[in-house]
């Protein structure tokens, strides 16, 4: 199987393309998708699949979400494109009260086979309403799968799995990593949900992260290695299901845990990881278990202010050193 080096946005484009070619019930709806989408993630889809399967919609987020669900209920597999994550707030009834609950509430009669794509995170001084990342909310919401890839290969493989899933999948496209390149196979195989990827092997500290912040974490890990601190670095890739087993196994080995996320620290998914590890392993054997996230403020516009909320390699290195004391 041949392999090519592509950007992350091209990788997800290829994944959706492959699945739309494979399965005629897969289609996409959202604003400007017929023009290729805001980031080119649907480039050239319109000529190949036509306006019935590549549906540019009005600015009607509730209906983009809700119509996607309705279309799933009659046997199609919609990819619901939200343009940016923040706009999902205009469609929360459809997502939270309908999509997430419908299979359960109707005792298994409904098959809400939708993928909801939400390019998320801090991106070029877009300020408070265009920079959010609330992925932990959806871990707390029964009925949905939460996918948060960070590499072209993972994004492609997980998107394939998402499209084939019968359950609703929230797919957090890491918009700040769209230009990042990596190798992707010409036939994209599905990657199972709930399996972390080990990025680096180490015995001193377990570092857990996901999504757009991963490159910063890797950079920090390299710096730490130069100081003689060897981290066991896991990219969770999906937050529900999440690879509790792999994290616990790693912490059993290192005795130390640092979870890093771009999102606000308070009540973020980092808390879940720390609490789970403490519950599974007991506090006794553990030397440190901490989180590093953003302060509890909206994302500001000006570069020096935005830097205050950003988790940077320096901050990660400092937090990691802190766990070693």
């Amino acid at each position, binding site marked *: 199987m041949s392999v090519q080096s592509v950007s992350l946005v091209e990788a997800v484009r290829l994944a959706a393309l492959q699945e739309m070619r494979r399965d005629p*019930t897969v*289609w996409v709806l959202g604003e400007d998708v017929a023009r290729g989408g805001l980031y080119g993630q649907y480039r050239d889809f319109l000529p190949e699949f036509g306006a*019935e*399967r590549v*549906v540019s*919609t*009005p600015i*009607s987020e*509730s*209906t983009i*979400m*809700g*119509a*996607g*669900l*309705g*279309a*799933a*209920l*009659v*046997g*199609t597999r*919609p990819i619901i494109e939200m343009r940016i994550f923040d706009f999902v707030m205009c469609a929360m*009834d*459809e997502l939270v*009260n*309908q999509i997430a609950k*419908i*299979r*359960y*509430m*109707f*005792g*298994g*009669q*409904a098959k809400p086979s939708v993928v909801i794509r939400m390019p998320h995170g801090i991106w070029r001084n877009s300020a408070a309403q265009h920079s959010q990342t609330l992925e932990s909310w959806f871990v707390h919401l*029964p*009925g949905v*799968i939460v996918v948060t890839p960070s590499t072209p290969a993972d994004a492609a493989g997980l998107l394939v*799995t998402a499209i*084939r*899933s*019968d*359950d609703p999948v929230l797919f957090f496209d890491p918009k700040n990593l769209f230009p990042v390149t990596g190798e992707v196979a010409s036939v994209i195989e*599905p990657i*199972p*949900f*709930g*399996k972390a990827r080990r990025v680096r092997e180490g015995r001193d500290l377990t570092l857990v992260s996901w999504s757009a912040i991963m490159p910063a974490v890797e950079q920090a890990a390299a710096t730490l290695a130069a100081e003689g601190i060897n981290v066991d670095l896991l990219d969770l890739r999906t937050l*529900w*299901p*999440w690879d509790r087993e792999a994290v616990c196994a790693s912490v059993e080995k290192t005795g130390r845990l640092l979870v890093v996320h771009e999102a606000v620290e308070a009540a973020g998914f980092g808390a879940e990881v720390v609490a789970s590890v403490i519950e599974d392993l007991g506090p006794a054997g553990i030397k440190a278990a901490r989180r590093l996230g953003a302060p509890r403020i909206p994302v500001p516009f000006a570069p020096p202010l935005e830097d205050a909320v950003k988790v940077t390699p320096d901050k990660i290195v400092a937090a990691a050193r802190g766990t070693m004391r």
Partner: protein
Amino acid sequence: MQPQHNIRRLVELYSAMCRIRAFETAALTAHKEGVIPGPLHVSIGQEGVATGVCLNLRASDRITSNHRGHGHALAKGAGVQGMMRELFGREGGHCRGKGGSMHIADFSVGMLGANGVVSGGIPIAVGAAQGLKMTKSDAIAVCFFGDGAINRGPFLEGLNWAALYHLPVLFVCEDNGVAAFTRTEAVTAGPGVIARAASLGVPGETVDGNDVMAVDEAAGRLVAEVRSGKGPRLLQARTYRITGHTSTDAAAWRDPAEVAAAKTRDPIEKLANLLSERGVAASEIDGIRSAAEAEMAEAVADAKAAPWPDEAIAYDDVQDVGAVAFGGRA
């Protein structure tokens, strides 16, 4: 199909309405006895709408409903035993006891579910119509909602969308003049739902919802238009909710004279009178009604005797245990 209001059709309509009335009356009683848990919204007095519309649909057509969905489900052909067991929260309910009255659904007959959120069914119906069109089905979608729903955003978005993509969907606004404890006119500006629909590109018309034959005629026509690819349509059916908002609401704020007057316009009584005028024997008319009552009494007895669902099923019908439970398609 242009409905023929021959005796046979009238009897069909009458029987369907009687079954809804009997179902809900039995449910109300059971709820008062405390054997049906949770909130219960009945549509007593409104049976003409569900009946007149759904008797023009095919099994393959889909409907979405609101919080007051028993009539829509029954008229669409939902199994009574499964419905009553669902209301009771027992094993064998259509939703396995997970939904109850407010989430009654029977996908096997195209009833895609009641909804606890006002106007929640609108985008779902629109999407179902889009999926049906995309897959070249000749089935259509019908969306039932109340007059209260036309003040929520999804009404605008859904109708614009349906008109834009020329979707096979019939919107049915069941206009009983009231939303919970508030008269709709007190919270609804402008000339009404027909004007709103027209402004969004959806032609609509109004019918007396307590005249089941009028509903039958209008729905038959509109369903045919929708099915033939003419795009979405809206039907406003004016009716009256004789009972309160929920089973525990006496709607004491309404003038008793108003309710009494409304009872004289009861769609079931009206049709019974007509049947009698047309020469159907009183015994036959009563027989239809008592057959319906007997059917529902049996359903109640069955539901009461049915076992509770096993606690273990609380944990299924949802991906909750990680990768193992993930049911991907190869």
